[in-house]
């Protein structure tokens, strides 16, 4: 467990389970939240665009972390579940439904589809289950590409109208920042707390030893299904936000490659921690952004490699970072952060 500050005692049951433990932490949380939501009034749209992308990734990765990090089930289909949310929301809003209703609906439909592809968990687990989710990753984009082209737009996809609320049209990086960060904060709070409930503890029990969990009275199948539902629900919410952020969606945006990147974010951030997805998504997206910023410069230094520089450097660095993390820090950035915190609190002593 993390070390506590000196003088921080549990004086009541409510205090015992509190996440934010003292006034200093409350103050910091409030300052952070105010700063988070005041940012669009000061920052340029380039920075906000990156932050919006990071925010959407954080939501997806939170969901994936519940499934992979807590429940220990590998999913290679997260991007496909995200596409279900994106298309649900796009079709609903194009049909005249308000975005604020379409957002939860997108989560729900994606969750149900996730449930469907989680059903093989009744018979299979581990690697075999990963293959079932891999088939979801092919079947779902195929569906949006080829079935009912009149509704889903086929290969070119759909254009998506911006959300509206009380006369404000959310059609810029500045305005989309608010719904995205709002959902990020909510999703983080929910993810953090799911892990602390009976549900979350059952997930961890299944991850650590599923047979032993069954013996303890945890019905593995239904809990795995719940993890699949939650994971896809998060992906659906993110998909809906993505649809209205990008304003145009097509099946190519939700490929296997994206699923692999989300899994990479879970690993880099640290599995089984609510902080992990935030750190992982931020780290990988910033890495991607840096690559995009620096590749013109590198192109000047190595003119012969210019053509493939941007296309090649992204996957190369992502693969390299992921491999290094797997070998040297499999518990991810969140674990590093805990170590750093402990060292800070114990300073100047080593233990």
């Amino acid at each position, binding site marked *: 467990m993390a070390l506590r500050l000196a003088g921080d005692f549990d004086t009541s049951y409510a205090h015992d389970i509190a996440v934010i433990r003292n006034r200093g932490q409350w103050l910091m949380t409030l300052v952070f939240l105010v700063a988070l939501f005041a940012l669009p009034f000061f920052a340029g749209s380039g920075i906000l665009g990156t932050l919006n992308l990071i925010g959407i990734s954080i939501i997806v990765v939170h969901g994936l972390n519940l499934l*992979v990090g807590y429940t*220990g089930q*590998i999913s290679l289909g997260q991007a496909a579940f995200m596409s279900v949310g994106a298309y649900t929301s796009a079709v609903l809003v194009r049909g005249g439904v308000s975005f604020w209703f379409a957002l939860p609906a997108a989560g729900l439909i994606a969750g149900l589809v996730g449930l469907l592809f989680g*059903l*093989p968990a009744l*018979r*299979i687990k*581990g*690697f*075999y289950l*990963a*293959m*079932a989710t*891999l*088939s979801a990753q*092919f*079947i779902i984009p*195929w569906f949006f*590409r*080829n*079935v009912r082209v009149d509704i889903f737009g086929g290969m070119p996809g759909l254009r998506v109208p911006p959300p509206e609320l009380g006369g404000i049209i959310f059609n810029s990086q500045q305005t989309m920042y608010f719904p995205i960060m709002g959902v990020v904060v909510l999703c983080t709070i929910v993810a953090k707390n799911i892990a602390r409930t009976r549900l979350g503890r059952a997930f961890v029990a299944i991850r650590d*030893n599923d*047979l*032993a969990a069954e*013996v303890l009275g945890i019905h593995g199948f239904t809990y795995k299904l719940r993890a699949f539902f939650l994971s896809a629900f998060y992906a659906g919410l993110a998909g809906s936000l993505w649809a209205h952020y990008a304003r145009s969606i097509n099946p190519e945006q939700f490929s*296997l490659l994206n699923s*692999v990147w989300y*899994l*990479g974010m879970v*690993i880099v951030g640290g*599995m089984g921690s609510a902080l992990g997805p935030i750190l992982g998504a931020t780290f990988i997206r910033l890495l991607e952004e840096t690559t995009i910023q620096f590749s013109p410069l590198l192109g000047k230094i190595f003119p012969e*490699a210019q*053509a*493939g*520089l941007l*296309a*090649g*450097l*992204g*996957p*190369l*660095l*992502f*693969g*390299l970072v*992921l*491999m290094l993390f*797997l*070998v040297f820090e*499999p518990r991810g950035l969140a674990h590093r952060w805990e170590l750093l915190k402990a060292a800070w609190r114990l300073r100047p002593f080593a233990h």
Partner: protein
Amino acid sequence: MNWDLFPQFLATGLLTGGIYALIALGLVLIYKSSRVFNFAQGHILMLGAFIAWWFTENLGWSIWMAFLAAMGVAVLVGLVIERLALRPLIGQPILAAVMMTLALAQFLQGAVILAFGAYQRSLPTMFPLQPLILGDVRLKLNLVLAFAVALIGFAVFVLFFRFTRAGLAMRAAAEDHQLAQSVGLSVPRIFGLAWAIASVVAMIGGVLLANISGVETNLSVIALKAFPAVLFGGLESIPGAIIGGLTVGVIESLVGGLPQDQAIRSLHLGDIAPYVFMLLVLMVRPEGLFGLKRIERI
């Protein structure tokens, strides 16, 4: 339904299936010995095509020389991958190994684009291009010969496992790591050997495939079709790999080609038929035709 074209689609499916079987063989080899499923198999295949292209283009070698040289490079690539990427993960949970091969796939993708550029190339042809006509069935001769090379490669590896000392050692390690170690076999070295052979198999597939469809980074996608093949045949079974590969090739070809109705054809059912098939296999018989059924005890 175009039943008259049935033999045609069946034959085309079998030929494509041969390539799937070759990729599946590489997957089975690695899984059998080290319990790692190699998602990067397709990217090693693509690398092989690019290396062979490089030899023919920059050193002016004939395609067959380049083919052999690519196989030599494959041994090195396999050994390096095993030593640097997979060996540190021995004893880690399955997710770590899965992620490692996925990361490796991304790394190879990026490396190939950086080294060779992302545009399409063509290899000098290995086989004559004229069609082969057998009754109603028209086949491309280069596909048929590539299939034959794939089958020969397959046979060589089966014989290797059956009749050589190294093959026996690999089969022993596949059976039980601790037992193999107790009789003096070096299990890490066997893992290295498995990766080397799997890379060679992948690069054979890569050169054959590049001969038919050109050298490009999209070649790696074909390995995704080999996944249903391996699962159907059974992850631990070498004969399963060939049966699975051929079955998936035939299913894909028949589902894509047979329906005559335009509305059904426009759905491109052939694209997902292998994955629907994989889902069915997973639900009905997860261990596949010849795979090992795992029994768990606490």
